[in-house]
């Protein structure tokens, strides 16, 4: 193999390694570990590079010289050397794993994925192919007739333009070099509507496109939709610039007048308190109204009581008068009967009142006076 040095610090380890076994500088498991007089452990290359820059320990910054560094105890070296690693050529395909100290031997003797010099022409060739005949001779491709190195033939066959390929849509067999071009015109390739950018969800085979587009509402509205889209982007842009300006202006407003912009919550709170005030007013008003009603009722009752009493008085007076009239009428009837008895003949009532009944007359007067007084009650 080449004299290339193995980059131990970029090896991949099979399992995660305890951080105590890692170098504080490269953060990988220690390689060729050394330790310092201040008892810190590093890879020897790492600490040497660090000391070129600064004569202090990278971990605790105590002054440190190259002679303060010595190889770490053999136990530490063994611990890191026996960690299992992947072959550095694992990406090329080598699946070999081994203890770290065996990697060098693997690469120089066994690894199939190490490049070696070709025995015949000196060109690069993987060890796995090195035993065969020289792979750097040119060979004619049987499909496209190009001259290709044998070593590259495998890669060439994947892209040889002379090989036939099959169209995945219409199954047509066609030369690879033309396959791409064919896909752009293949009648059975799945494509989407030319108005898909405007939102048409249709997709189908190319041969059905013209049929679809004859009925596609999006294609129909294309000019309108495009104009809208343009306007939308213009408005968005404008909106963005306006928003920026607002952003620039708001801090100033906030500073100069903190009370002005009321938040929604504050507004709602104001409304609620106002409503509360109104409710209280209404309660007060309805209470006064009730009081007034009661007062009015009392007044009405007093008034009607008096009226009733008066009415009763009047009724009594009327009764009295009626009795008086009745009495007078009866007196009169008795009087004529008496005259009949005394004078023996009928005379006019006015003339009949004689001196024989003055007392009765005055008594009736007095009685009526009494009734009059009763009315006044």
């Amino acid at each position: 193999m080449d004299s290339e040095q193995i980059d131990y610090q970029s090896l991949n380890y099979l399992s995660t390694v305890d951080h105590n076994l890692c170098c504080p500088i490269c953060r990988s498991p220690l390689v060729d570990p050394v330790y310092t007089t201040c008892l810190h452990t590093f890879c020897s290359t790492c600490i040497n590079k660090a000391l070129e820059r600064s004569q202090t320990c990278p971990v605790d910054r105590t002054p440190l010289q190259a002679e303060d560094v010595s190889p770490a105890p053999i136990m530490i070296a063994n611990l890191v050397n026996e960690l299992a690693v992947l072959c550095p050529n694992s990406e090329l395909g080598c699946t070999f794993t081994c203890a770290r100290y065996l990697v060098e031997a693997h690469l120089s003797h066994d690894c199939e994925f190490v490049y070696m010099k070709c025995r015949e022409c000196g060109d690069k060739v993987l060890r796995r192919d090195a035993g065969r005949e020289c792979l750097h001779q040119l060979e004619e491709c049987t499909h496209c007739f190009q001259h290709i190195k044998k070593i590259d033939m495998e890669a060439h066959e994947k892209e040889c333009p002379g090989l036939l390929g099959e169209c995945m849509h219409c199954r047509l067999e066609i030369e690879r070099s033309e396959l791409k071009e064919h896909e752009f015109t293949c009648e059975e390739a799945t494509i989407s509507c030319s108005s898909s950018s405007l939102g048409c969800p249709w997709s189908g085979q190319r041969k059905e496109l013209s049929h679809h587009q004859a009925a596609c509402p999006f294609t129909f509205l294309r000019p309108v939709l495009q104009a809208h889209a343009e306007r939308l982007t213009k408005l968005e842009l404008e909106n963005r610039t306006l928003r920026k300006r607002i952003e620039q202006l708001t801090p100033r407003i906030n500073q100069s007048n903190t009370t002005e912009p009321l938040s929604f919550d504050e507004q709602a709170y104001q409304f609620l308190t106002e409503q509360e005030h109104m409710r209280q007013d209404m309660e007060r008003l309805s209470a006064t109204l009730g009081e007034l009603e009661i007062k009015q009722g009392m007044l009405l009752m007093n008034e009607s009581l008096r009226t009733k009493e008066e009415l009763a008085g009047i009724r009594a007076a009327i009764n009295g008068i009626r009795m008086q009239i009745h009495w007078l009428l009866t007196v009169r009837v008795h009087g004529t009967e008496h005259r009949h008895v005394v004078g023996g003949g009928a005379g006019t009532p006015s003339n009949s009142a004689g001196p024989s009944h003055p007392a009765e007359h005055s008594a009736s007067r007095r009685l009526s006076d009494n009734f009059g007084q009763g009315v006044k009650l």
Partner: protein
Amino acid sequence: MAALPKRIIKETERLVADPVPGINATPHEDNLRYFDVTIHGPASSPYEEGIFRLELFLPEDYPMSPPKIRFLTKIYHPNIDKLGRICLDVLKTNWSPALQIRTILLSIQALLGAPNPEDPLANDVAQRWKEDEKAAIETAREWTRTHATV
């Protein structure tokens, strides 16, 4: 460019899988030595609530030489200049190859929480910090509001 050293791969994996709270570092897809970094301003500092963007580059001989870091977000700080360069000893003379990206970003976050006007990089800022610390802190707070909030 040579293959990426294992150490950088490991550090990147850990930064992504187990990020430091308040710090985010993402490598560029096309250059794995170049990181986009954001640092949240530490609580109860004038940089609180700010999100600061930085760029971080790992030079060819990292970790032997320190990463190159610069603030991209404008910041008012006595140890950070107009161009975003940071005055932090571990990024210069006190660098050690045992330090890592995450430890460096943590020290930068700590520097935001504890400005040091005695070791200034931005002289005018440091001057003001020493003369009128209250006003300087207010300015830092204002810059955080205007430049470091999304």
